[in-house]
Protein backbone atom coordinates (compact mmCIF):
# COMPACT_ATOMS: atom_id res chain seq x y z
CA UNK A 1 0.00 0.00 0.00
CA UNK A 2 1.24 3.50 -0.89
CA UNK A 3 2.29 5.84 1.90
CA UNK A 4 -0.81 7.65 3.18
CA UNK A 5 0.51 11.08 2.11
CA UNK A 6 0.89 9.81 -1.43
CA UNK A 7 -2.56 8.25 -1.72
CA UNK A 8 -5.18 9.97 -3.84
CA UNK A 9 -8.47 11.15 -2.33
CA UNK A 10 -10.46 8.23 -3.66
CA UNK A 11 -8.11 5.72 -2.01
CA UNK A 12 -8.22 7.68 1.24
CA UNK A 13 -12.01 7.58 1.22
CA UNK A 14 -11.92 3.81 0.63
CA UNK A 15 -9.38 3.41 3.41
CA UNK A 16 -11.53 5.40 5.84
CA UNK A 17 -14.59 3.37 4.92
CA UNK A 18 -12.59 0.27 5.79
CA UNK A 19 -12.01 1.72 9.25
CA UNK A 20 -8.59 3.38 9.01
CA UNK A 21 -8.93 6.75 10.76
CA UNK A 22 -5.55 7.94 9.54
CA UNK A 23 -7.25 8.47 6.18
CA UNK A 24 -9.62 11.14 7.48
CA UNK A 25 -6.78 12.81 9.31
CA UNK A 26 -4.94 13.05 6.00
CA UNK A 27 -7.99 14.45 4.18
CA UNK A 28 -8.49 17.07 6.90
CA UNK A 29 -4.84 18.02 6.75
CA UNK A 30 -4.89 18.14 2.96
CA UNK A 31 -7.91 20.43 2.64
CA UNK A 32 -8.33 22.28 5.95
CA UNK A 33 -6.88 25.54 4.63
CA UNK A 34 -8.98 25.61 1.46
CA UNK A 35 -12.21 24.70 3.24
CA UNK A 36 -11.66 26.89 6.30
CA UNK A 37 -10.52 29.92 4.27
CA UNK A 38 -13.56 29.58 2.00
CA UNK A 39 -15.93 29.47 4.96
CA UNK A 40 -14.16 32.27 6.82
CA UNK A 41 -14.13 34.72 3.90
CA UNK A 42 -17.80 33.99 3.20
CA UNK A 43 -19.04 34.47 6.76
CA UNK A 44 -16.31 36.85 8.03
CA UNK A 45 -16.67 35.67 11.57
CA UNK A 46 -14.04 33.46 13.13
CA UNK A 47 -16.17 31.70 15.70
CA UNK A 48 -18.87 30.93 13.18
CA UNK A 49 -16.28 29.79 10.63
CA UNK A 50 -14.86 27.34 13.18
CA UNK A 51 -18.36 25.94 13.86
CA UNK A 52 -19.22 25.63 10.17
CA UNK A 53 -15.85 24.04 9.45
CA UNK A 54 -16.52 21.38 12.06
CA UNK A 55 -20.09 20.89 10.83
CA UNK A 56 -18.78 20.44 7.29
CA UNK A 57 -16.44 17.64 8.32
CA UNK A 58 -19.05 16.01 10.54
CA UNK A 59 -21.37 15.88 7.53
CA UNK A 60 -18.52 14.50 5.45
CA UNK A 61 -17.83 11.80 8.05
CA UNK A 62 -21.50 10.84 8.21
CA UNK A 63 -21.76 10.62 4.43
CA UNK A 64 -18.61 8.54 4.16
CA UNK A 65 -19.70 6.19 6.95
CA UNK A 66 -23.09 5.76 5.25
CA UNK A 67 -21.37 5.27 1.88
CA UNK A 68 -23.18 8.27 0.38
CA UNK A 69 -20.03 9.60 -1.24
CA UNK A 70 -19.97 9.13 -4.99
CA UNK A 71 -16.57 8.15 -6.33
CA UNK A 72 -17.47 9.81 -9.61
CA UNK A 73 -17.07 13.23 -8.05
CA UNK A 74 -13.87 14.70 -6.70
CA UNK A 75 -13.55 14.95 -2.93
CA UNK A 76 -12.73 18.67 -2.65
CA UNK A 77 -15.58 20.04 -4.81
CA UNK A 78 -17.94 17.70 -2.95
CA UNK A 79 -16.66 18.84 0.45
CA UNK A 80 -16.85 22.49 -0.59
CA UNK A 81 -20.42 22.03 -1.77
CA UNK A 82 -21.28 20.79 1.73
CA UNK A 83 -19.47 23.77 3.28
CA UNK A 84 -21.13 26.23 0.91
CA UNK A 85 -24.60 24.79 1.60
CA UNK A 86 -24.01 25.15 5.34
CA UNK A 87 -22.98 28.78 4.85
CA UNK A 88 -26.07 29.50 2.73
CA UNK A 89 -28.29 27.74 5.30
CA UNK A 90 -26.75 29.92 7.96
CA UNK A 91 -27.42 33.09 5.97
CA UNK A 92 -31.06 32.03 5.51
CA UNK A 93 -31.51 31.44 9.24
CA UNK A 94 -29.56 34.61 9.98
CA UNK A 95 -32.09 36.85 8.21
CA UNK A 96 -33.81 37.53 11.51
CA UNK A 97 -30.56 37.82 13.40
CA UNK A 98 -27.87 39.75 11.44
CA UNK A 99 -24.42 38.21 11.47
CA UNK A 100 -21.91 39.75 13.81
CA UNK A 101 -18.82 40.33 11.68
CA UNK A 102 -15.40 40.35 13.23
CA UNK A 103 -14.46 43.75 14.50
CA UNK A 104 -11.55 45.77 13.16
CA UNK A 105 -9.64 44.86 16.31
CA UNK A 106 -9.95 41.16 15.62
CA UNK A 107 -6.72 39.86 14.19
CA UNK A 108 -7.22 37.42 11.38
CA UNK A 109 -3.51 36.84 11.56
CA UNK A 110 -4.02 34.66 14.59
CA UNK A 111 -5.23 32.02 12.20
CA UNK A 112 -2.88 32.58 9.30
CA UNK A 113 -0.70 29.63 8.42
CA UNK A 114 2.71 29.99 9.94
CA UNK A 115 5.43 30.58 7.41
CA UNK A 116 9.02 31.44 8.12
CA UNK A 117 9.18 35.22 7.81
CA UNK A 118 11.22 37.70 9.73
CA UNK A 119 9.46 40.56 11.55
CA UNK A 120 9.75 43.02 8.68
CA UNK A 121 8.54 40.50 6.10
CA UNK A 122 5.68 39.51 8.38
CA UNK A 123 4.63 43.15 8.74
CA UNK A 124 4.55 43.66 4.96
CA UNK A 125 2.68 40.38 4.52
CA UNK A 126 0.13 41.26 7.21
CA UNK A 127 -0.45 44.65 5.63
CA UNK A 128 -1.05 43.09 2.22
CA UNK A 129 -3.50 40.56 3.64
CA UNK A 130 -5.34 43.29 5.53
CA UNK A 131 -5.74 45.17 2.25
CA UNK A 132 -6.97 42.04 0.51
CA UNK A 133 -9.54 41.47 3.22
CA UNK A 134 -10.66 45.06 2.88
CA UNK A 135 -10.96 44.59 -0.87
CA UNK A 136 -12.97 41.38 -0.52
CA UNK A 137 -15.24 42.91 2.08
CA UNK A 138 -16.25 45.67 -0.29
CA UNK A 139 -17.35 43.36 -3.09
CA UNK A 140 -21.03 42.49 -3.52
CA UNK A 141 -21.69 38.98 -2.17
CA UNK A 142 -22.15 37.39 -5.61
CA UNK A 143 -18.75 38.64 -6.78
CA UNK A 144 -17.03 37.92 -3.47
CA UNK A 145 -18.38 34.38 -3.55
CA UNK A 146 -16.82 33.72 -6.97
CA UNK A 147 -13.46 35.18 -5.92
CA UNK A 148 -13.43 33.06 -2.76
CA UNK A 149 -14.45 29.87 -4.53
CA UNK A 150 -11.79 30.40 -7.20
CA UNK A 151 -8.95 31.55 -4.95
CA UNK A 152 -9.43 29.87 -1.64
CA UNK A 153 -11.52 26.86 -2.57
CA UNK A 154 -9.41 26.34 -5.68
CA UNK A 155 -12.40 25.36 -7.81
CA UNK A 156 -12.32 25.89 -11.57
CA UNK A 157 -14.85 28.26 -13.09
CA UNK A 158 -16.66 25.20 -14.47
CA UNK A 159 -16.83 23.62 -11.00
CA UNK A 160 -18.05 26.93 -9.54
CA UNK A 161 -20.77 27.23 -12.17
CA UNK A 162 -21.90 23.67 -11.38
CA UNK A 163 -21.91 24.34 -7.65
CA UNK A 164 -23.88 27.58 -7.92
CA UNK A 165 -26.11 26.43 -10.79
CA UNK A 166 -25.06 29.34 -12.96
CA UNK A 167 -23.67 29.58 -16.46
CA UNK A 168 -19.85 29.53 -16.65
CA UNK A 169 -19.96 32.89 -18.45
CA UNK A 170 -21.90 34.32 -15.51
CA UNK A 171 -19.18 33.06 -13.15
CA UNK A 172 -16.45 34.53 -15.36
CA UNK A 173 -18.38 37.79 -15.71
CA UNK A 174 -18.76 38.16 -11.94
CA UNK A 175 -15.07 37.44 -11.49
CA UNK A 176 -14.22 39.99 -14.15
CA UNK A 177 -16.28 42.67 -12.42
CA UNK A 178 -14.74 41.71 -9.08
CA UNK A 179 -11.25 42.16 -10.54
CA UNK A 180 -12.23 45.53 -12.03
CA UNK A 181 -13.69 46.66 -8.72
CA UNK A 182 -10.67 45.48 -6.72
CA UNK A 183 -8.32 47.17 -9.18
CA UNK A 184 -10.29 50.39 -8.85
CA UNK A 185 -10.13 50.17 -5.06
CA UNK A 186 -6.40 49.46 -5.20
CA UNK A 187 -5.86 52.56 -7.32
CA UNK A 188 -8.16 54.69 -5.18
CA UNK A 189 -6.54 53.61 -1.93
CA UNK A 190 -3.06 53.62 -3.45
CA UNK A 191 -2.44 50.06 -2.31
CA UNK A 192 0.84 48.65 -3.49
CA UNK A 193 0.33 45.02 -4.43
CA UNK A 194 3.61 44.64 -6.23
CA UNK A 195 6.27 42.38 -4.72
Amino acid at each position, binding site marked *: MAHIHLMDDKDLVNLYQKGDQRAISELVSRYKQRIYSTIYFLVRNRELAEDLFQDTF*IKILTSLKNKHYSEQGKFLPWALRIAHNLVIDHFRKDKLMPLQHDSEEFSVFDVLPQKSRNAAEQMIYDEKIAHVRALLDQLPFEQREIVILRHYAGLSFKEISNMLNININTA*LGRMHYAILKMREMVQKQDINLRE
Partner: protein
Amino acid sequence: MIKTTTQIDLLQYAYNESDLADSDRIQRSIDGDPLVKEAFQEIHQLTSILNDGFLEPSEKSILNILAKA
Protein backbone atom coordinates in the same frame (compact mmCIF):
# COMPACT_ATOMS: atom_id res chain seq x y z
CA MET B 1 -9.87 36.39 -38.77
CA ILE B 2 -7.79 37.59 -35.83
CA LYS B 3 -9.56 37.07 -32.51
CA THR B 4 -9.25 39.91 -30.01
CA THR B 5 -8.02 39.03 -26.52
CA THR B 6 -10.68 39.98 -24.01
CA GLN B 7 -10.46 40.52 -20.26
CA ILE B 8 -12.29 37.21 -19.81
CA ASP B 9 -9.63 35.49 -21.95
CA LEU B 10 -6.93 36.97 -19.72
CA LEU B 11 -8.81 35.87 -16.62
CA GLN B 12 -9.04 32.27 -17.82
CA TYR B 13 -5.41 32.34 -18.91
CA ALA B 14 -4.31 33.67 -15.51
CA TYR B 15 -6.03 30.67 -13.91
CA ASN B 16 -4.62 28.17 -16.41
CA GLU B 17 -8.09 27.44 -17.70
CA SER B 18 -7.53 28.30 -21.37
CA ASP B 19 -7.18 25.52 -23.90
CA LEU B 20 -3.87 25.06 -25.68
CA ALA B 21 -4.76 27.00 -28.84
CA ASP B 22 -6.20 29.92 -26.88
CA SER B 23 -3.23 29.93 -24.50
CA ASP B 24 -0.85 30.36 -27.40
CA ARG B 25 -2.93 33.18 -28.90
CA ILE B 26 -3.30 34.97 -25.56
CA GLN B 27 0.39 34.72 -24.72
CA ARG B 28 1.28 36.20 -28.10
CA SER B 29 -1.17 38.99 -27.46
CA ILE B 30 0.41 39.67 -24.04
CA ASP B 31 3.88 39.67 -25.59
CA GLY B 32 2.87 41.93 -28.46
CA ASP B 33 0.54 44.49 -26.90
CA PRO B 34 1.69 46.58 -23.91
CA LEU B 35 -1.92 47.34 -22.89
CA VAL B 36 -2.84 43.65 -22.85
CA LYS B 37 0.38 42.93 -20.95
CA GLU B 38 -0.48 45.54 -18.35
CA ALA B 39 -4.04 44.21 -17.96
CA PHE B 40 -2.68 40.68 -17.51
CA GLN B 41 -0.10 41.81 -14.97
CA GLU B 42 -2.79 43.56 -12.94
CA ILE B 43 -4.90 40.39 -12.83
CA HIS B 44 -1.83 38.37 -11.95
CA GLN B 45 -0.83 40.73 -9.11
CA LEU B 46 -4.31 40.71 -7.59
CA THR B 47 -4.63 36.93 -7.85
CA SER B 48 -1.14 36.38 -6.45
CA ILE B 49 -1.81 38.37 -3.33
CA LEU B 50 -5.21 36.75 -2.80
CA ASN B 51 -3.58 33.35 -3.07
CA ASP B 52 -1.26 34.26 -0.23
CA GLY B 53 -4.10 34.74 2.24
CA PHE B 54 -4.96 31.21 3.32
CA LEU B 55 -6.18 30.76 6.88
CA GLU B 56 -6.00 27.82 9.28
CA PRO B 57 -8.78 26.46 11.47
CA SER B 58 -7.94 26.12 15.15
CA GLU B 59 -6.33 22.98 16.50
CA LYS B 60 -9.40 22.54 18.68
CA SER B 61 -11.66 22.27 15.63
CA ILE B 62 -9.37 19.66 14.07
CA LEU B 63 -9.31 17.62 17.29
CA ASN B 64 -13.12 17.80 17.57
CA ILE B 65 -13.47 16.46 14.04
CA LEU B 66 -10.95 13.67 14.51
CA ALA B 67 -12.64 12.67 17.77
CA LYS B 68 -15.80 11.99 15.76
CA ALA B 69 -14.08 10.09 12.96
